[in-house]
């Protein structure tokens, strides 16, 4: 009896482990094959001209995606400059100040709704509010739409991460008579730094690949950036345009643009992590005596 149960337990253990490994393999193989496909196809298109030139005439097989790279950097940069601080501070509010009343509960609820909203809806919001009001497609409108995608993600992750910081840290700060804002900024937030940063990187990766809201806001152009109130190009838009052309070279260019987008996000993620890691402890000593 006992033995049979033991062997059953061991069998179940093996079945569950096997399923877990199988699931990992599926996701790794799928992601890996996509990445390899992009690298193989994309590498063919890469050249200095491709990275720096404006798109050539359709069908000419010339030109590059310079404006798209520049536009993505500008739009995503502006989005992060707006979205990251707003998201982090809203998360701080929910975790450290709000408590459990009706207002914070409804903020959390609508924040979750916002996370799940189709991005094109947010594009339309930006179109109706900013594009029509300003009379032009613009970088501002694009950054606004992408911020609406970024903020709820950052809010959620920041709140969850801050809540994991043990309350004993806050109490230690309180017992030293440190004001609440300094406890949050100098003790709690640094302890949650890597989690908050992961949330921001996740949100940046998400918005960097958005296409639909950009059609409604920055429109896309063949020219380099001129002003924040005018249209600009972006890599996802350019990939979409290139893919819809009937030429092989355009498809190759599309793969190349996709590779650049992946490398940008990867580089940003690594860069931010390195930066956060480097700002560790300063070496300090006191001369003895």
């Amino acid at each position, binding site marked *: 009896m006992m033995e049979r149960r033991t062997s059953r337990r061991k069998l179940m253990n093996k079945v569950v482990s096997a399923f877990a490994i199988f699931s990992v393999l599926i996701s790794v193989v799928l992601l890996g094959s996509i990445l390899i496909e992009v690298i193989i196809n994309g590498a063919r298109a890469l050249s200095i001209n491709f990275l720096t030139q404006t798109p050539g005439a359709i069908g000419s097989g010339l030109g590059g995606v310079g404006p798209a790279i520049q536009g993505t950097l500008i739009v995503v940069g502006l989005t992060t400059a707006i979205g990251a601080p707003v998201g982090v501070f809203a998360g701080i509010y929910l975790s450290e100040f709000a408590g459990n009343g009706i207002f914070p509960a409804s903020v959390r609820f609508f924040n979750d709704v916002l996370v799940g909203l189709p991005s094109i809806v947010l594009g339309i919001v930006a179109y109706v509010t900013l594009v029509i009001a300003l009379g032009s497609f613009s970088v501002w409108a694009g950054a606004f739409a992408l911020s609406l995608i970024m903020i709820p993600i950052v809010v959620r992750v920041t709140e969850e991460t801050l809540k994991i910081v043990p309350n004993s840290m806050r109490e230690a700060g309180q017992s*030293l008579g440190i004001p609440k804002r300094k406890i949050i900024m100098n003790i709690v937030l640094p302890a949650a730094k890597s989690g908050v940063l992961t949330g921001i990187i996740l949100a940046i990766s998400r918005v960097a690949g958005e296409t639909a809201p950009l059609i409604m806001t920055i429109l896309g152009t063949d020219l380099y950036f001129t002003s924040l109130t005018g249209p600009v190009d972006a890599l996802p838009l350019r990939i979409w345009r290139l893919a819809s052309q009937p030429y092989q070279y355009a498809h190759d260019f599309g793969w190349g643009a996709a590779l650049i987008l992946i490398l940008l996000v990867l580089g940003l993620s690594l860069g931010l992590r390195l930066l956060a890691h480097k700002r560790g402890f300063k070496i300090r000593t006191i001369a003895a005596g």
Partner: protein
Amino acid sequence: MGSDEDLSNENARGLQQREAEKEREQEIKVDKVSDSQTQSKQEPEEKQQLVPKVSIKNLEAWFGSKQALKSINLDVREKTVTAFIGPSGCGKTTLIRCLNRMHEMTPGAKAKGQVIIDGTDIYDRNIDAVIIKRRIGMVFQKPNPFPTMSIYDNVAAGLKLNGIKDKHLLDEIVKDSLEGAALWDEVKNELGKSGMGLSGGQQQRLCIARALAMQPEVLLMDEPTSALDPMASSKIENLVHDLKKRFTVIIVTHNMQQAARVSDDTVFMYLGELIEHNPTKKIFENPEKELTERYISGKFG
């Protein structure tokens, strides 16, 4: 050398107090009270000794609607160690957390009454609950050094984050505090390293150093050895002996032997009430109350 250090301590105290305007208001208050104390100075010396460092009057505390402390009255003498003992849930931790107004930080918790420390009622309406904590050090059950700070910054955190920037002064106080917490010799060459790399006992002494850096008048210790092994615990106990030369120490412990070893006076609590407050020797050898006797002899709790 010794007198030099004392002088710099005085400077640090001065800087701390000048730093915040609100605190200045409190200082004025303290001055007024010490005026009245100077009047009593003309009276015989013995009477001076009787002025308690901490005086608790009709203190009551609640968690929501549940009363955790029932009208506590207690005087604590200066530069002594007072231990709070009693079974789990008797209110000893609640009581110590009322002594620096930490209790009310818990959502739904409130406290009422007077806690007079060096003549200042910390529950006075004009007292800022944040700032008063600078004068009362606290050490918690589990060591809780700030994880992202170096050993140096952990000790200096209370001063730095309250606006003291003078590096020379900070260096001096950090060294002094680490020495006071018997940790200096073990960490003097790795002040820049994270406090999280230290052992549990060292972390707890780091937390004590962090509290000492604020030059508190009273040091509250809430079961400071409950998460430590016997060796680390005995180091903390020895440290408590040294600390009482400079500070008034109040320690909560669930360990009666510890109370017997470290304290001068012992307070026995039960169900939110203060049952007996007597010299430790008397409590353990010849307690007044039957309840105390039964608890000490292990008949309940």
